[in-house]
């Protein structure tokens, strides 16, 4: 019998605890306290949090108890956006004023009820109208609690002369943290770099002219190279060679540039025209004029081809439009021999024989309408042909000067400052940044005709790749970023496998993943 007693006792205790005996919850105490005092003052003293997660648009919920519950749930969810699995942040519940919200709800509800009862007694017809009026008021109340209740009866003031917006060309530097993967710099600083070319190709009649750009490597792994008056295509995967076009005597190719994706090649010729060729069909698509002298540099930006000419102008051609000439940039007085778009296509850098590096901004006013360059860098003492944008710092531009200058300079195009200048002790013909390492490679002329790999930003020399017997005029990178092809005035093309991804690093990644799998397995056994 005693055990039954015990059970009934226990049940009693549980019931009691649940309904009457337990200590009153905090909000109840608060409610009582506030009811004792004047309601209005309590409202204004209590600060309502500006938590819009339970917003004013939310329709009023019928049962007050439930509605506060859902609110509490909603407002305490931790922010899910933790990029890169950063610090865990636990939001403070003090930001959500449960007590006040509950009080206002309950208070309103009881008032409503009593009102409704009275109304019900007096006239049944008015009931509906009254109820909807209450609804409206309640909506207002909820929206007050939800957001601006804080400043009830107050004023919100602001200063008339507003702060300026960020400049149009500005990009949030944090974007790098969210999106871009920057190449990891090698720890020891000494990785193995093969110093002999992987392959040597013969390039007879390669024109030895500092101001021309006669080679490019496409995303489809095809190298286009101009030899004399002909353009040849060398398929790097299969080794096939194809002749694309041949010019008449006296005419020659001055620049080549592949579209980012696909088989369209732009060719600038000595008469000042830009030709578009479909290389899969070996067919010329169109000819676009616009220059009075030879076109020594070309660069693509999706449907836009920009050509730099000996007449000092840069013309933007829209390849889709009948009137292809969409803009002209007049910033150079002598031949334009270097043109490069920044990786985000916001800036165009141009280098010329007038020793200038100009940076043109695309943002804000559209292509080609800029009359003045964003920055004019005149620190080089010779013609600037070598230009390269840093892939992991989109506002860093590297430029290399000719024989009289021999410097590689780094610029911040955001504020137009010179970051660093390094004397390479030889004319700089071409510059490329690596995609796998924090390094860049430069091509040089007299005395050693070498390619030099530098660590960036320290600019410590990593390796010299020698082999060319005359100056190296042009470099291009393979689509996978591991191989560099260099074209020398000695009429050879050399392929250097100097940026091959570290095999140890890829092994490590594989190891880590296999370890992770193991540990999960172990856990499941336990």
């Amino acid at each position, binding site marked *: 019998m005693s055990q039954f007693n015990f059970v009934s006792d226990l049940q009693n205790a549980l019931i009691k605890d649940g309904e009457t005996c337990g200590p009153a919850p905090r909000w109840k105490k608060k409610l009582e306290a506030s009811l004792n005092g004047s309601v209005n003052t309590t409202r204004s003293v209590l*600060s309502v*949090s*500006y*938590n*819009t*997660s339970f*917003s004013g648009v939310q329709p009023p919920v019928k049962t007050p108890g439930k509605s506060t519950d859902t609110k509490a749930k909603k*407002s305490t*969810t931790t*922010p*899910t*956006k*933790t*990029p*890169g699995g*950063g*610090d865990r*942040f636990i*939001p*403070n519940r*003090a*930001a*959500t004023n449960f007590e006040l919200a509950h009080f206002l709800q309950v208070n309103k509800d009881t008032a409503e009820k009593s009102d409704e009862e009275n109304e019900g007694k007096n006239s049944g017809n008015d009931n509906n109208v009254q109820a909807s009026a209450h609804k409206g008021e309640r909506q207002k109340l909820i929206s007050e609690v939800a*957001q*601006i209740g*804080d*400043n009830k*009866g*107050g*004023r*919100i*003031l*602001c*200063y*008339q*002369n*507003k*702060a*300026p*917006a*960020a*400049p*149009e060309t*500005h990009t*949030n*530097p*944090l*974007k790098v*943290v*969210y999106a871009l993967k920057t190449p990891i710099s090698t720890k020891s600083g000494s990785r193995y770099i093969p110093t002999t070319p992987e392959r040597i190709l013969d390039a007879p009649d390669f024109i030895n002219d500092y101001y021309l750009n006669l080679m490019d490597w496409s995303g489809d792994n095809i190298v286009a190279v101009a030899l004399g008056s002909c353009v040849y295509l060398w398929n790097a995967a299969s080794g096939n060679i194809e002749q694309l076009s041949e010019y008449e005597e006296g005419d020659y190719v001055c620049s080549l540039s592949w579209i980012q994706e696909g088989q369209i090649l732009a060719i600038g010729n000595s008469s000042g025209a830009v030709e578009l060729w479909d290389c899969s069909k070996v067919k010329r698509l169109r000819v676009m004029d616009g220059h009075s002298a030879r076109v020594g540099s070309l660069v693509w930006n999706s449907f836009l081809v920009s050509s730099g000419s000996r007449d000092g102008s840069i013309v933007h051609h829209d390849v889709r439009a009948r009137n292809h000439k969409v803009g002209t940039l007049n910033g150079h007085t002598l031949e334009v021999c270097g043109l490069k778009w920044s990786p985000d296509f916001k800036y165009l850098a141009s280098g010329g024989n007038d020793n200038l590096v100009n940076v043109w901004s695309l943002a804000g006013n559209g292509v080609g309408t800029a009359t003045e360059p964003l920055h004019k860098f005149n620190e080089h003492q010779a013609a600037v042909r070598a230009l390269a944008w840093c892939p992991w710092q989109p506002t860093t531009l590297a430029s290399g000067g000719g024989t009289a200058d021999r410097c590689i300079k780094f610029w*911040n195009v*955001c*504020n137009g*400052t010179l970051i660093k200048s390094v004397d390479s002790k030889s004319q700089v013909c071409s510059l490329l940044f690596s995609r796998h390492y924090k390094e860049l490679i430069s091509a040089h002329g007299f005395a050693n005709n070498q390619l030099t790999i530098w660590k960036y930003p320290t600019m410590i020399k990593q390796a010299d790749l020698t082999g060319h017997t005359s100056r190296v005029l042009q470099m291009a990178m393979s689509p996978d970023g591991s191989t560099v092809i260099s074209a020398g005035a000695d009429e050879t093309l050399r392929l250097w496998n100097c940026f091959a991804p570290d095999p140890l690093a890829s092994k490590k990644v594989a190891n880590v993943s296999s370890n992770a799998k193991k540990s999960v397995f172990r856990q499941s056994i336990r």
Partner: protein
Amino acid sequence: MSTSQATKNCITLKGSATIIVEYLKYGINSILFQRGIYPAENFDSTQQYGLTILMSKDPKITSFLQNVLTQTEEWLAKNMINKISMVITNAHTKEVLECWDFKMQAEVGDGETGDPTKLTSSKELSRIQNEIRDVMRQISATVSYLPLLDCICTFDVMIHTLQNTEIPAQWDETGAVFIQNAQAVQLRSFSTGLHKVDTVVNYKMSS
């Protein structure tokens, strides 16, 4: 008697306002830098609260903040401010993306005098600054979870005052801002003894 008065650490309402305005100055600049609203090149580093804080050197921004904060200090010293909001908006669409609220709550301090204008607090300045430093650290840490502001942005400071406040010259009255699909995170608070300042960041949840 007078010497003992002088050595006693004591913060008046005016002093409290100065401390808070200083916090706002460094806090707002730090937010502008940490959230990447303006180019990093336009900032200079200074030492404050034992931290390195980057301050904007754009003359337009500094003069804007100078004007706003001078007025804020005046109002704070009279306890007329409920809340100060720093609102970050998309410069093109004018959409509000983020709102940093600095909520002011008056406190009684030592509570020795009945006159509300002559309240004092004996809280040590170093302790207050340590509390502020903790908030500043949290502001820097918010970058890890706040969404990327991937557009050209601008900011404004809105001051929520009492109803009877006179609108000074060059000031306007505006409405409250509203963030769609918002999430609020409260950071640490600090107190000067006369004002308690809560810092809350409201931001737009990315869908």
